[in-house]
């Protein structure tokens, strides 16, 4: 199987009060289409740093990220932003949605920026599968926590990115809702052949993941690899 996203010996150092902090030790990682990866680890272990670097939100101190065969972590902010827009879907803890747009308009915004026609067929199918079809014309503040996260998944998947990055997507949800969101993420990842990388504290549903990595003190190790 082809590597979709590869991190080659990346490190991240910060300067904090004249002291160098090694947020991420030398780390390599390869992710494949259809893989649902969980990254666990204690707070401050470097999980979020890892996610922001592979998401192109910041540059690694050393090393390189290669997405679909093309190195991209060294590009300038504008180009990284463009690649994020086209190739990467983000799901955050909460607030992935714009408060003054209906769920449908969140999707339309992407089309408008991309200057392409709305793909009503994809909206129809995806929202059906994610169980948010009836919520398309609602504003985020009219949705429950679980509905918001399902809408956020819809928003992340609609542009058909190759990678989906999720930051604690279930942090604000109860057990039943968390399982629901995890299952939806897993199903869509496998079905659409995305690579989904999820940072999480929630270790209850790791059984759903194809691969689990752990980051401790800036070092990434594999805990479980299925298949």
């Amino acid at each position, binding site marked *: 199987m082809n590597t979709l996203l590869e991190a080659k010996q990346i490190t991240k150092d910060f300067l904090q009060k004249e002291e160098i902090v090694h947020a991420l030790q030398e780390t390599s990682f390869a992710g494949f289409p259809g893989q649902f990866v969980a990254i666990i680890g204690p707070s401050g272990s470097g999980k*979020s740093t890892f996610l922001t670097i592979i998401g192109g939100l910041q540059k690694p101190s050393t090393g390189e990220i290669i997405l679909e065969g093309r190195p991209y972590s060294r590009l300038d902010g504008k180009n990284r*932003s463009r690649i*994020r827009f086209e190739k990467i879907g983000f799901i*955050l803890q909460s607030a*992935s949605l*714009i*408060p*003054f747009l209906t769920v449908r308009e969140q999707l339309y915004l992407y089309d408008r920026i991309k200057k392409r026609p709305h793909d009503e067929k994809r909206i129809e199918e995806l929202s059906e599968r994610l169980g948010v079809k009836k919520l398309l014309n609602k504003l985020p503040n009219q949705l429950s926590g679980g509905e918001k996260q399902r809408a956020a998944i819809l928003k992340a998947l609609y542009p058909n990115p190759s990678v989906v990055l999720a930051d604690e997507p279930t942090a604000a949800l109860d057990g039943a809702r968390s399982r629901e969101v995890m299952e939806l993420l897993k199903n869509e990842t496998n079905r659409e052949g995305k690579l989904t990388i999820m940072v999480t504290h929630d270790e209850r549903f790791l059984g759903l993941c194809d691969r689990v990595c752990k980051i401790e003190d800036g070092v990434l190790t594999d805990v479980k690899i299925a298949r």
Partner: protein
Amino acid sequence: MFLAWKEIVRNKGRFSLVVIMMVLISYLVYFLMGLAYGLASSYTNGITKWGADGIVLTKDANDNAMMSLVTDTSFGEISAETKARFGLLPVVAKESEDNKTNVYLLGQESGTFLWDSLPDITLGTYDVIADSSLVKAGYEVGSSVSIVGFDEPLVIKAFVEKATYQTVPLLYMDLDTWKEVRFGNTSTPLSSAVALKGSVSSVPDTLKSYTLNEYFNVLPGYGAQVATFTLMISFLIVIASFILGVFIYVLTLQKTSLFGVMKAQGISSGYLAGSVLSQTLMLTLSGSLLGFGLTALSVAFIGGKLPFAYNLWFNLAITGAFTIFSIIGALFSVRAVLKIDPVKAI
């Protein structure tokens, strides 16, 4: 555009407050502009009709046409492309004890360009063309006007719009008739001043030449009044734009985390900055458009009671200034948007 508009639509309450503020201030500004322009033109429009380029008074007149007496000899020594003598005299038109009106008699040399914009009718010795505001004082075409201190009644042959000088209505007459009122005969070789058109090569030492603008600016009160209005209007525009800028800035700061998330999702800073700018423009333009509408409405109701005058270019300039200054105000927000770090979103 989409983002900016949707935000306004979904937050009608807070945005309508801003628009109301813009409407009130722009209403005030457009209204003041109309008044300022109307008042300023009522100082001058009776003689801007001429299309003259300059005015010549005697040096000793101390910039006051009423005090100027140009001799026919001096007039002869002015070398200019086109020149014409005129006389100005403040008088009181008396209809009855209760109906007295201040007017200026404006005697114009016959056969000169001074008559070009006036109705093409033959005026007899005591015939005049009058400012239309005299209609409100009860005069009509054919009415005779009694001038205090002059025995012969003057007869109004026609009315013209906007024929005032220093806000007072004018009676246009032949220079000879004017001399008769002023000096008691038509042979005195004096007139108040000279209007010039085209290039001027020289005027005699005893005379002083003004461009039309220079002349208006020395009219008593004119310059000070224009300066006062200009200052008020420009400050109002700057203040309104500043308030709008601050408002947009606060809204932008409130949306810092949202913009961070959107940047993380790959929406470019340019798009977000454009959205902030277009939102500012929407608020400014809708505010000033409504303000303009209110002005037009008010004028329709109270029109005529105030010296109100429209000038399309001034109104466009005000709208342009509102737009430019609010964009400058919005640039602070744009800078804030550009500085938002998407890493903070995660």
